């Protein structure tokens, strides 16, 4: 949806790490359509949790969504790169215009 509209930008997620290593996004900054996508992605992550009280600590993950490359006829190829410690780079070409035409 963000790709179709040509939305790109940076989303910062503040997440809580659960005892089971799962992430629970608490707050986010950035375009809403991208923030929701970032949240959906973050909930799929699992961290290894050390045996300490820090298990419930907060982490910050920075997502960068970028539209890059020539448009494609078929579905866009999205690349996903994780840079330690907390940066995620998502790149994809924008799908090109799909018009519906008619005649007067």
């Amino acid at each position: 949806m963000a790709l179709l509209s040509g939305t790109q930008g940076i989303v910062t997620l503040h997440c809580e790490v659960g005892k089971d290593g799962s992430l629970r996004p608490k707050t986010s900054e950035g375009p809403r359509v991208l923030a929701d996508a970032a949240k959906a992605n973050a909930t799929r992550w699992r961290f290894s949790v050390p045996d300490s009280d820090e298990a419930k600590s907060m982490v910050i993950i920075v997502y960068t969504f970028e539209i890059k490359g020539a448009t494609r006829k078929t579905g866009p190829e999205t690349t996903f790169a994780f840079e330690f410690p907390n940066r995620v780079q998502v790149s994809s070409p924008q799908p090109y215009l799909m018009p519906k035409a008619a005649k007067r």
Partner: protein
Amino acid sequence: MGVLAGGGMWLKCFAIGLLMVVGNQTMGMAAENDCDTILVDLEGLRKHGPEYDEVVGMMSSLAGWMKDDRRCSGFFGGVEAVEDWIQRLIRYGLIAVAKTTNMVDPEGMIISGFTSSCGARAPAGYAAIFIATNGSFFDRDVRTAMPTGSRWKYYPGASVQVRVILILHELSHSMGLAGFSHDDRLDMNMSAKNNGVLQAECAKTIESAVRMNKSAERRIRGAGSPRRRQPPSMPTSPDRLMRRGLPAYNKKRRYRACEQPKRHEWGNAVRNHLDWLGRTDRLGPAQPPTHRSNGVSPIGTPLRHAGHRDPPL
């Protein structure tokens, strides 16, 4: 892209295709992104107003129409998926309306709607689905071709059927559905096939939309009818009262809960009423009122006693 109509459309479509191919080859190497090649110009781009409300209203209703159509909902991955997708489009504000001009063939072809802002003169991130205010959604004269057997049938624009097909078409593109060609602008047959697919898969949904809109239209028409809106007319002036006669008047206002006067009693009732209104001069000297109470019109008084006879007028 939907089906194009007219003999020269093949050539026009080929021209667009050629431009795109050339565009991809040249721009693709030189630039990171070829969305700078403007194919569609937009005028009056907006996300508000009656036209926008109409589009969003129809999109919001779509899941309801699709609810009983298992084939169509299956094609779209379930009613919930469609509903969620539409709600997100609306929530993120990714639907827009604008007047479109095709830059390749400004005179001949009208783009009724499109998905993806790449190649349209719109700010980045503005919208994902655009519906043209001069396209088949709003303009009756813009015809949409759909395959019927081996031929194409043209449907006039602004009809419920065409509107639903257009919205389904754009949703199919935006959701990237399997079984729906997303590269239909270079191939006329593919484009026609797309409309045919939607017609076949979502026949019940379209039918339901037409039915619901017809009943809503009837309801609105009924409510707006001047006959229904106006209260029943009450002949208060003596002239109108005389002209129309009493029965109609009685039926509507005064005698509803009372005994109806007999025909020979009308004259007296009229006279009494006129007397009450202070207009008896038109009918000569007033008869002594037989039924009267202070401040109450004798018209409403039932004439009950059996031996009563009024003198003829």
